């Protein structure tokens, strides 16, 4: 649980972050989204005290973050940034081992943790453990960056535009990986992005910021159906908000009892994808199947459409 209370940052007479308060549930992903200059990065950097707040405080599981030296606090919090910030003079394994080394873990534990993470992030240790970052592709570098951030098993992971430098295909893969990793470790993730699509895709809750102020902090569906502010509505996009709303619900969540002789769709597919499939195939209903291939129910076009309305 991260509680942000009245957090403010001023540089001279300029207020970059203005009395922002919200709480992030344990084991969830919160996304802070805003245009550049909205103060979203500064807000994130105040959580691990890379930026010291002018006013307000951050509580981590109830304890004020200022109750311990900043560098000790940061070793407990994962940190991944755009352009990954890997150390070019250290190998992949050394990069990943950075925080465990700072914490003085025994060498054997460091080695086993590095191997474990390389396996989770689909990096062949035999090929890449002793490679230098510049020998890796952009997607691999990004994965090493996240692996390094998670090396010391932090309960909280801060990510500043972590996928900003990736091309769309690798970015989609990286987002999926992040969701899987978050489920696996139960890490509380706070992620900053300027991309609303990414925010909706990853965030259980999304904080929309503009000019240093927090405009709205809620579930993606609420942002779409009840924007608190014209700016939030503009950010979420008015033209295709019904489709975006459909994208937030999975077939498994919306499936109704019954069967269908229409196309089979996986329960993890979004309603938007199911609707698209139905339009394409000309069928009026689809059969929802689980990962094991067993039927989970059916969806008609009419049933899907009810989810596209507030």
């Amino acid at each position: 649980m991260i509680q942000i209370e009245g957090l403010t940052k001023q540089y001279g007479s300029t207020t970059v972050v203005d009395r922002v308060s919200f709480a992030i549930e344990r084991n969830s992903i919160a996304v802070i989204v805003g245009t550049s200059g909205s103060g979203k990065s500064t807000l994130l950097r105040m959580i691990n005290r890379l930026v010291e707040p002018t006013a307000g405080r951050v509580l981590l599981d109830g304890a004020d973050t200022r109750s311990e030296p900043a560098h000790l606090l940061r070793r407990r919090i994962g940190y991944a940034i755009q352009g990954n910030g890997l150390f070019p003079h250290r190998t992949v394994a050394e990069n990943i081992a950075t925080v465990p080394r700072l914490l003085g873990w025994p060498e054997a534990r460091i080695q086993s943790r590095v191997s474990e993470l390389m396996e989770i992030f689909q990096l062949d240790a035999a090929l890449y453990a002793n490679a230098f970052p510049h020998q890796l592709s952009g997607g691999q570098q990004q994965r090493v960056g996240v692996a390094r951030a998670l090396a010391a098993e932090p309960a909280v992971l801060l990510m500043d535009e972590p996928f900003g430098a990736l091309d769309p295909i690798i970015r989609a893969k990286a987002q999926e990986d992040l969701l899987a990793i978050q489920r696996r470790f139960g890490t509380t993730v706070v992620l900053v992005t300027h991309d609303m699509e990414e925010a909706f895709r990853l965030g259980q809750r999304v904080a929309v910021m503009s000019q240093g102020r927090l405009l709205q902090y809620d579930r993606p569906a609420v942002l779409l159906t009840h924007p608190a502010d014209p700016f939030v509505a503009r950010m979420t996009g008015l033209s295709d908000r019904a489709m975006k709303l459909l994208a937030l619900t999975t077939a498994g969540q919306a499936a109704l009892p019954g069967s269908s002789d229409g196309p089979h769709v996986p329960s993890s597919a979004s309603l938007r994808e199911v609707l698209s499939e139905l339009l394409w195939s000309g069928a009026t209903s689809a059969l929802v199947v689980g990962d094991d291939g067993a039927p989970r129910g059916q969806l008609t076009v009419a049933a899907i459409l009810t989810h596209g309305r507030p």
Partner: protein
Amino acid sequence: MELRLAIALSPHERIDRLGLLLSAAGLAALVWLPFVVFKSNRIMPGEPRELQQVLPAWGALGLQTVLLLTAVVALFITDARRRLSAALAGVIVLALALAAAANALTPAGDKVVRVAPGAAFWVLLIALGLLATDAITRMRPGPVVRVLLLATCIGIAWAALAAGMFDHLSVMREYAVNSGRFPLELWRHVWLAGGSLLAAVVLGLPLGILCHRVPRLRPPVLGTLNLIQTIPAIALFGILMAPLGALAARVPAASALGIRGIGAAPAVVALFLYSLLPIVANTVVGLRRVSQAAVDAAMGMGMTPRQVLSRVELPLALPVILTGIRVVLVQNIGMVTIAALIGGGGLGTFVFQGIGQTAIDLVLLGAVPIVVLAFSAAVLLDALIEVLDRTPSVAPQLDP
């Protein structure tokens, strides 16, 4: 396919331009310039001697044949290894011919006549040296190979000198007279250049780090060091004489340490002051070049500022800092020469004595080792920089 390959490899397809220039220079030197200069004693004017006058017919012909073959290789062969072999063979034969000429012109037991290399020898040596350097550059050897190559060349030259091959040559005559002082002055030269460098690193590195951390300090510090750089060395020695002399007179401890208005102290202080600019400036540039994302990540993961400096910033800035140290070391090895003028010692002593006595051989006794020292320092540090700079400096990508 095979036909095209054969045409591409045909040696007559293209004449090497550098080879053409060097061969032309070498040929002109062999035809028109004297191979050695003979003096009946140290201060008599020299008489030029042609190759044919000083070597037996077979010897002269042999040298000319080898040089001609080298020229053919330089003109038509593109393979770098063969070009290097040809250049080295040329240098060895040239050195043998010089030794033979000196022996032939010196009557047995004579210690008075002087035989010095003539203009043709120097032109040929430079041409062959350039050919060898060009070949080595084309081969792109790794840093270790370059250092080994340098060590081998110096080793062979050393062995030839130690074996007395060139003892009848005028430079070695000067060496024989000064053999007691030579190692001392050589060591003193290295010590003056290296000591002032060390002092400059000890002070310049922290100063550079400070300038990086506090941008306000940069203009005044770098401006002052730039100003020092513009003072001519001789003038700086003069400026330092008064304060150092006063210091020695007032503080017995300083005087006991050997600090005087003249001698080594002002030389070391002046070289130290000159050394500061490249070291401070390169430290600042090197630190600024470090990826901001890497520094941000290091801070964000919980490194203390000291750890960020020692584990991320300095290792990444090191190649640039070493480049500054290389500039300073090569510059110092050259500048220490002038320290001899104010009694600082070093190989410059021979240079200035030689100038005073119009004895060019004595000048060479000081100058050639200085050139070898500076060249070796450059090769060694370049190799070190290359070993350390395995990582590319990618432009940091931050918030767009």
